[in-house]
């Protein structure tokens, strides 16, 4: 299991090769890349800044991967998440899961990505023509997060 938070970009082919390590048990590699779009919630975005909670981020993602491994038959998993300033078309996050069979690899990859969106402490601030704004959680992302909600 590998978790990295970094400002630098990543190369998918190199990351997949490193995760596979030529293990001949790997039959399926599912991956996901999140990318900066030039619009969000209907407004134009020229740049964004990603803030995170160092230390907790890595721990949260390791727990997410641990949960995925306990649910599905997974050989290995990788999450790389960028922080700092990013522009449209830049890569933000990479999730790769290797497995013997595709069903488990697909499910674990999507699970990790969904939970990462609601559990890993990252926050996006977007620069738009109207100024900067913190991105609000989307209702669809937050359903799974309700159980960590700080009860007021």
């Amino acid at each position, binding site marked *: 299991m590998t978790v990295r938070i970094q400002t630098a970009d990543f190369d998918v082919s190199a990351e997949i090769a490193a995760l596979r390590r030529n293990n001949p048990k790997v039959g399926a590699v599912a991956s996901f890349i999140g990318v900066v779009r030039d619009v969000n919630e209907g407004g134009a975005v020229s740049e964004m800044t990603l803030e995170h909670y160092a230390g907790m981020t890595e*721990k949260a993602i390791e727990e997410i991967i641990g949960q995925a491994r306990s649910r599905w038959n997974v050989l290995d998993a990788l999450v790389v998440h960028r922080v700092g300033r990013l522009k449209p078309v830049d890569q933000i996050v990479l999730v790769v899961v290797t497995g013997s069979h595709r069903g488990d690899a697909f499910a674990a990859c999507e699970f990790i990505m969904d939970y990462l969106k609601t559990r890993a402490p990252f926050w996006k601030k977007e620069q738009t023509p109207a100024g900067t704004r913190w991105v609000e959680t989307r209702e669809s992302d937050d359903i799974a997060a309700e159980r960590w909600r*700080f009860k*007021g």
Partner: protein
Amino acid sequence: MVTVLYFARLREALGMGSEQIALPATVRDLEGLRALLVARGSVWEQELAPSKPVRAAVNLAMAHGDTQIADGDEIAFFPPVTGG
């Protein structure tokens, strides 16, 4: 003393990223700490109001209002996460 961290919109609104707080003996859980901060009034009352979707962590783990806290803990308050 506990270390309290604020992130993202909360950090900006409160004008601080972290502080050290000496816990009164009456404050034993996250809910108590939040009430202590709300009692400061102005932006504190506003940003940490019960109606606000504030999340919290204790020692790097997501926490609830009734999560116990003690001297030496690292506590964080932040908005719902928006990574990925």
